[in-house]
């Protein structure tokens, strides 16, 4: 399979990305790690008669790569604010981070066992979140942890809970000209316990069938379960 034809932009700032998005809207897609987007583009460009449905219409004509913007792979921690993860931070970055391991073991575990090394070193947490693929294993831990995303556009900025960010498979609350500039994971109230469980059809590198993340704080339990086909969330007090 090969990629369809598209125009590639390599902006130098997030503001530039926002203005490109504002100009091209749905015809443009943002490229972070590419593990979802490149596969999707190849699929859409493949044998016209064999592909599912008529996807030709939806092949984006513009791809905006984030690689040229510095400072997007950050992992920062400050007491009170919690962890801040940049839009180009990969699963491998998080899995290799001693600060995440110490401050957010639930997130660390989720990133550590996700997929396989090749994918972990390319795929980004934010990119995965924005694609809202049911195979984005990191969503349940983020919801359990009460994570928020910072969304920017040409003229504005807003914050949304991850819980409210994904509206179903491949659906998010992002508007045409918006992108996620940061992911924030607050510190859970001490003392707390956690668990992360993942089941696949075959072996670890497969897409998950079910992912369960549990965060247990004093007098409070949050269980988030994601099932491949339908993302379901459950809470219990």
């Amino acid at each position: 399979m090969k990629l369809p034809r598209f125009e590639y932009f390599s902006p130098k700032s997030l503001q530039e990305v926002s203005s490109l998005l504002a100009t091209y809207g749905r015809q443009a897609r943002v490229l972070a790690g590419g593990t979802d987007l490149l596969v999707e583009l190849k699929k859409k460009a493949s044998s016209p008669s064999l592909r599912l449905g008529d996807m030709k219409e939806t092949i984006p004509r513009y791809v905006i790569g984030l690689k040229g913007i510095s400072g997007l792979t950050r992992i920062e921690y400050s007491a009170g604010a919690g962890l801040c993860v940049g839009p180009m931070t990969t699963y491998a970055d998080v899995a290799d981070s001693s600060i995440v391991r110490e401050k957010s073991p639930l997130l660390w575990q989720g990133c550590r066992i996700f997929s396989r090394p090749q994918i972990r070193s390319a795929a980004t947490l934010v990119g995965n979140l924005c694609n809202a693929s049911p195979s984005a294993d990191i969503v349940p831990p983020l919801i359990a942890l009460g994570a928020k995303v910072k969304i920017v556009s040409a003229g504005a900025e807003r914050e949304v809970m991850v819980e409210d960010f994904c509206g179903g498979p491949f659906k998010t609350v992002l508007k045409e000209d918006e992108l996620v500039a940061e992911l924030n994971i607050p510190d859970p109230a001490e003392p707390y316990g956690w668990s992360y469980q993942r089941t696949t059809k075959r072996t670890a590198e497969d897409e998950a069938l079910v992912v369960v993340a549990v965060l247990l704080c004093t007098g409070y339990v949050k269980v988030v379960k994601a099932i491949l086909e339908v993302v379901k969330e459950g809470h219990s007090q």
Partner: protein
Amino acid sequence: MEKYSVIGKRLPLIDSVAKVTGEAKFTDDLAMPGMLVGKILRSPHPHARIVRIDVGKALKLPGVRAVVTGKETPGIRYGALDNLRDELPLAIDKVRYIGDEVAAVAAVDEEAARDALDLIEVEYEILPALFTPEEAMRPGAPRIHDHVENNVSLALRVPLGGDVEAGFAQSDFVFEDSFETQFIAHCPLEPHTALATFDSSGKIVLWSSTQGPFYLRRDLALTLDVAEARVRVIKPFVGGGFGGKREMLAGDFCAALLAWKSRQPVKITYDREEEFSATRRRVPMKIYLKIGVMKDGALVAKHLRVIADGGAYNGRGPMIVASGASQMTLVYRFPHFLFEGYHVYTNNPVTSSMRGFGNNQIRFADDSVMERIARELGIDPVELRLKNARLPGETTLMGAKVATCGLRECIQKVAERGGFYKKRNGRATNATSRQGSLRGVGIASGAYISGAKLFFEHDSSAAFVKVEENGSVCLLTGASDIGQGANTVLAQLVAEELGISLEDVRVVSADTDVTPMDLGAYGSRTTFVAGNAVLAAARDAKEQVLEVAAEKLEANSADLELKDRRIYVRGSLRKSMGFQEAVSGALNSPKGIVILGRGYYNPPTDYDPRTRQGNVSGAYTFAAQSAEVEVNPETGEVRVLSLVAAQDCGFAINPMATEGQIEGSVSMGLGQALYEDLETEQGRTLNPSFAGYRIASSRDMPPMECHLTQTIDPEGPYGAKGVGEMTLVPTVPAIANAIYDAIGVQIKSLPITPEKILAALKERQG
């Protein structure tokens, strides 16, 4: 002293270095000056009439050199047998499945070819489509092929060995059950590829990833309506076939047609999506099975009814239905049999040959019912199988003459090595392993042919052994090495017979203008049939060598023997000469003798296709496998902990290659038992990629043991029988039976997914 010098040895395949270094050239590695890239336009509809095709825009696209549609073809249908020919390599009037070939394009690069496909305008009149055999068989259902009523392309009713109803009446117990198997993809790592050229005389040369160039030559000449003599087919290195490269596909035909039209070489390589959705797949079967049994476990009668989803065209499907049933009579003995089989057209992709040729499906059902019989009658499952197992020297209900049979030894071996008795007893005390998971063991058997006269009046293969002045030998065989190691095994036979080393033998194979004929790599026939042919040619060469040596050594040629590249006079250590010396001496003499061995082999069988009775194959092979599994009752996940395989291979010419066949089979069987399923909705394949279609990975492979039972078949080359397919046949039922043992419920449809296990456990709990 060891009996043999080259055969019976664990030798690396002669092409292994070329493959590991990447030096081996597969069809897609080949390039020609001026070569174009071909692409095929496929039907997006499961069933439609083609009203109009306009290729005008596509032809105008820069870089496009030729476009062909069915209208420009001779419109000749092809298929396995004359009465099964129902398929056009390019559709003319009608398309019958999503992926059916409508047009093809040749362009200077892939991009232009793909873009050109989008510019071809096809107007379709959509027809009602049928996706299950049941709806297709319904009276009044639309016809997929005009000449076939109710879409049943084959209906068989074969009563054998007396009266099945009387058999059930005299049985102490009667068991009845239904099973279902799935669509499975062959998944060769090398996709289907064809490269075609025309020379100035109008001759076609086609390089193709095929399992049989002579078969392909026949179908290509037929459908192009040219003389066979004007077609040459060459098989380069092939990266796996598993039955999926047995038949000509549209890629072969379109490459040749586009090359003719453009007067340039054209290569067509299927992409993985096409591989999964538009090539052949395993025939899914709905299997009804009724078995009558005495209380001591002796089998009395079986009634088997199979409804097969044939997809849009026959392929080899009808013969697969018949083959699975007939080979059911090989494994266990029973006196009464009624077989009913239906091969039904649907608007699904075409189902056809795949490793096991119908046996895998039937054995899943048969050995599953055997397991229920054992469980419900309180008979040990190993004892039940031993009691009924085929014995050497017997003739089956179908008329198969079983000269050698190691089934009992195989069953005993896997039961013992699989720790069957110990584990069964452990389970009886309700011992569970870690984290409350459930463990179980299962066993299953199988039997298979070593080639058969099913497609032609003969089942021949031929070979030349060209002995060079320098003492080396060139073997020319029509047989197809598709990765299974045929070239190595055949070279070993030649080296052994001539008393030379394996490195003295070069193999040129599978080229219709260079090598003698062979029908191809199918039916587990290569080692047995081509092996016998090669042996005949080697013996012919040997006689000639001995004759010239006899004169030099002043001995009787009957007293000479060949060993270690020398010719000895038996009983006289001092009188000997080198092999090369003899050959060279014969040439460098006034007589100028050149040693050329020739031979062919056609199995001495007497099968009658009309009655479906008689001895169908020259030898029969048997196997048993046992599996131990662990099931997680919370998630339904299955882990195969160990697998033991025992194979009656007659004689292992290369035990390492034989074990390789078994190991590969187990990985395939594991996938087919637990993971693999081409999900197909309204005729569309939903998971046409390795991400969506899950084969077993290296991490899923259980620790396994292979045991070779050598029964030395009198008809086989040095006693060898075929193993290529047999090795896969018992894997699925062995795993299924182990799961049954673990969870106490039988899952009767494949694959056995965690969802099905959880649902079954839930239902049992009520």
